[in-house]
């Protein structure tokens, strides 16, 4: 516990159990210093810790017991890993004497978590506790952030065992042996950014006639939104924002060309195809962005700015790269960058952006819901999403303005992430309005956490895009699988309004835009958690769409839904 206080931890999400009971016993004594949020399921706790980390920029902490408790958080660990979110997961295992004997609730969680963490620790000796904790927190938040798992054997947590321990505050622990050991081969302070690399990019920018920028998750993780904005405005180039980059660059900025990739805007995808210089900051060119790596930005010189060298030339081969944190590299570039003007190129690309006003199609549409949210909810409201059509619509029609405003599972695509993340954000940012945008399929996966929301009185507004189907899979079945809707129709309960009421929350059902406007206003004014069930047509589709593996301008659906 002292080790957690060292790291300024004041909030933990978790679920107790047999092997972790000693830690919880100690937590009881530290109640006034550490706030523990008990969720309904360990997976909810893992997403909440992740959401807390993403929203606040601090390290999230999640507790789980051995065996099933530990395996239940693995989806949360993988979600954090794929989106580079700094979370320390703490589990306890059976005692040393039972280890490896298939004891009750025993599982090799450090082995299981190895491929989905930056590091794992199995602590077998109480003396190792302080150093393991210091290293775990240092690793989680340094370099490219990510999850770390620390597994304590039960005997290590025995309260009768006393160790020599000195409290070293995290801000002041750079000289402690554990941290020094981590940094023996990499410099204690971040290495300098290569000035030659920076100069070379400045030259490339000077030569470019049609520059195009991609704002990726690295900008968000490094909280480098100001630097990126200055960079974009100086180059005067259209900016595509990836799913993870949401909040890294203002969604309503005149240079924004929208999302890029599978459901990218026509503006972004065409700009990508026609640009002569593409600079991606903190983006790994995932297969949802660079659908066909061979033809991606085929006319352009591609430049990657990333903190992780392993991302260079991994998915798309590049012409140049700069290694370093987004903030530092961009400040160096900004210091030497003159003001450019690319009026003609901008005028060619930016008018292709989607219309921001929802057209009246004579039915209740996702765009109308999101327009209502955009006009009614506070501009700084934190938005968490689940995964699927509603996620794509939310990214497309809401404008995010600062890092940590959008919480979404991009890399791992975890259905059920949204509710947990919203809990984390509501706990971490109590002064902000938190909206959880979800679908009927996703809400079914984690609606048990409504109990957590009610118990801790977290004012989360859950908005369900209820089309009675697993819409995104159905969309693929519609367009690519000849309308064979195999197991995607969700013609079943629960009644989400009654479900909300069962959890002691208010539930609303809305079927048109007027009801939506009135309901959202009322819900926000009440300042209490609630569920708004929005009934949508089952055939709504996300457009534009480019099929996996195809060229980025090979639209299967055009903007507005016409077949490309």
């Amino acid at each position: 516990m002292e080790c957690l206080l060292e790291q300024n931890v004041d909030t933990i999400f978790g679920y107790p159990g047999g092997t972790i009971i000693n830690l919880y016993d100690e937590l009881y004594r530290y109640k006034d210093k550490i706030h523990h949020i008990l969720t309904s399921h360990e997976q909810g706790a893992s997403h909440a810790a992740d959401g807390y980390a993403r929203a606040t920029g601090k390290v999230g902490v999640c507790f789980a017991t051995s065996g099933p408790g530990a395996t239940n958080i693995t989806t949360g660990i993988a979600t954090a890993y794929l989106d580079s979110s700094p979370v320390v997961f703490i589990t306890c295992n059976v005692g040393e004497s039972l280890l490896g004997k298939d004891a009750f609730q025993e599982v090799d969680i450090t082995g299981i978590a190895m491929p989905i963490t930056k590091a794992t620790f199995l602590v077998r000796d109480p003396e190792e506790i302080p150093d393991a904790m210091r290293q775990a927190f240092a690793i989680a938040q340094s370099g490219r952030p990510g999850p770390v798992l620390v597994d304590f054997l039960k005997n290590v947590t025995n309260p009768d065992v006393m160790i020599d321990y000195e409290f070293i505050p995290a801000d002041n622990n750079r000289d402690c042996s554990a941290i020094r050991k981590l940094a023996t081969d990499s410099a204690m302070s971040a290495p300098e950014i290569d000035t030659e690399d920076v100069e070379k990019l400045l030259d490339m920018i000077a030569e470019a006639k049609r520059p195009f920028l991609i704002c990726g998750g690295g900008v968000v993780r490094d909280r480098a939104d100001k630097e990126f904005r200055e960079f974009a405005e100086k180059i005067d180039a259209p900016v595509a924002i990836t799913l993870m980059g949401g909040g890294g660059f203002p969604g309503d900025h005149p240079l924004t060309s929208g999302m890029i990739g599978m459901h990218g805007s026509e503006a972004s995808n065409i700009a990508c195809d026609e640009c002569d210089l593409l600079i991606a900051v903190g983006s790994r060119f995932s297969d949802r962005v660079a659908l066909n790596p061979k033809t991606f930005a085929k006319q352009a010189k591609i430049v990657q700015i990333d903190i992780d060298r392993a991302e260079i030339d991994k998915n798309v081969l590049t012409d140049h790269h700069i290694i370093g944190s987004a903030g530092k590299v961009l400040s160096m570039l900004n210091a030497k960058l003159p003001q450019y003007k690319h009026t003609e190129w901008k005028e060619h690309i930016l008018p292709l952006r989607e219309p921001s006003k929802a057209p009246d199609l004579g039915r209740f549409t996702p765009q109308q819901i999101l327009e209502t949210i955009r006009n009614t909810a506070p501009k700084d409201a934190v938005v968490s999403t689940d995964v699927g059509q509603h996620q794509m619509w939310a990214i497309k029609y809401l404008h995010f303005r600062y890092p940590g405003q959008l919480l979404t599972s991009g890399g791992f695509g975890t259905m059920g992430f949204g509710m947990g993340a919203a809990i984390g954000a509501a706990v971490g940012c109590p002064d902000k309005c938190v909206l959880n945008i979800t679908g009927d399929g996703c809400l079914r996966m984690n609606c048990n956490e409504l109990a957590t929301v009610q118990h801790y009185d977290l004012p989360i507004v859950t908005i369900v895009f209820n089309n009675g189907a697993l819409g995104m899979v159905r969309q693929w079945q519609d367009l690519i699988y000849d309308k064979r809707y195999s197991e995607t129709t969700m013609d079943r309960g629960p009644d989400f309004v009654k479900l909300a009421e069962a959890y002691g929350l208010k539930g609303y059902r809305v079927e048109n835009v007027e009801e939506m406007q009135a309901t959202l206003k009322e819900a926000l004014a009440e300042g209490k958690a609630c569920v708004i069930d929005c009934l949508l047509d089952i055939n709504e589709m996300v457009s534009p769409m480019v099929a996996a593996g195809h060229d980025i301008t090979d639209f299967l659906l055009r903007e507005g839904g016409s077949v490309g």
Partner: protein
Amino acid sequence: MRRVFNPEKKIYTLAVIVEDIPGILSQVARLFSRKGYNIESIVSGATDRPGITRISIELLADELMIDQIAAQCRKLLGVKAVKILDEKTSIRREIAFIKVRAEERAARDEILQIVNVFKGKVIDIDLEAMTIWVFGDQDKNEALIRLLKDFGILEIAKTGTIAIERGHGTIYDDNKLQEEFNYGKNVL
């Protein structure tokens, strides 16, 4: 400029310098299985530096594959340095123990002669079999094994290939690439 990768497959040896911490070998080995690459051989041994182990991994790959694997390796926290070695840039050797049937005196004489040509040694012998030690590159060792097949091979134990860079350069030399990788895991 964009790199051009040679698509031709050949045998590479990846030399990986790691901290001697629990699970590091499986962490490194896992990268190969994840990508579905087949490891030809893997050797792990101590170095002159305390707490530092060298893992040598031999695999059949093309340039892009080996580059990606090396990148993922370098990214691991416990990995201090990685070098991609091929036959042009490095010396590669392995040791083999070959237990061969040798019941007749004539057979024993002949085996001894062959082994001498290959600069091998007989390290164990009884009335039914001889155990040969041979050190060399893979081609040489395989040639010896082929010749001994006629006598009847009972068992073989090989070390797998170890490799080291030719010339004065070492795996520990500072280079920009290693520095770049340190950003991703750097501890502030």
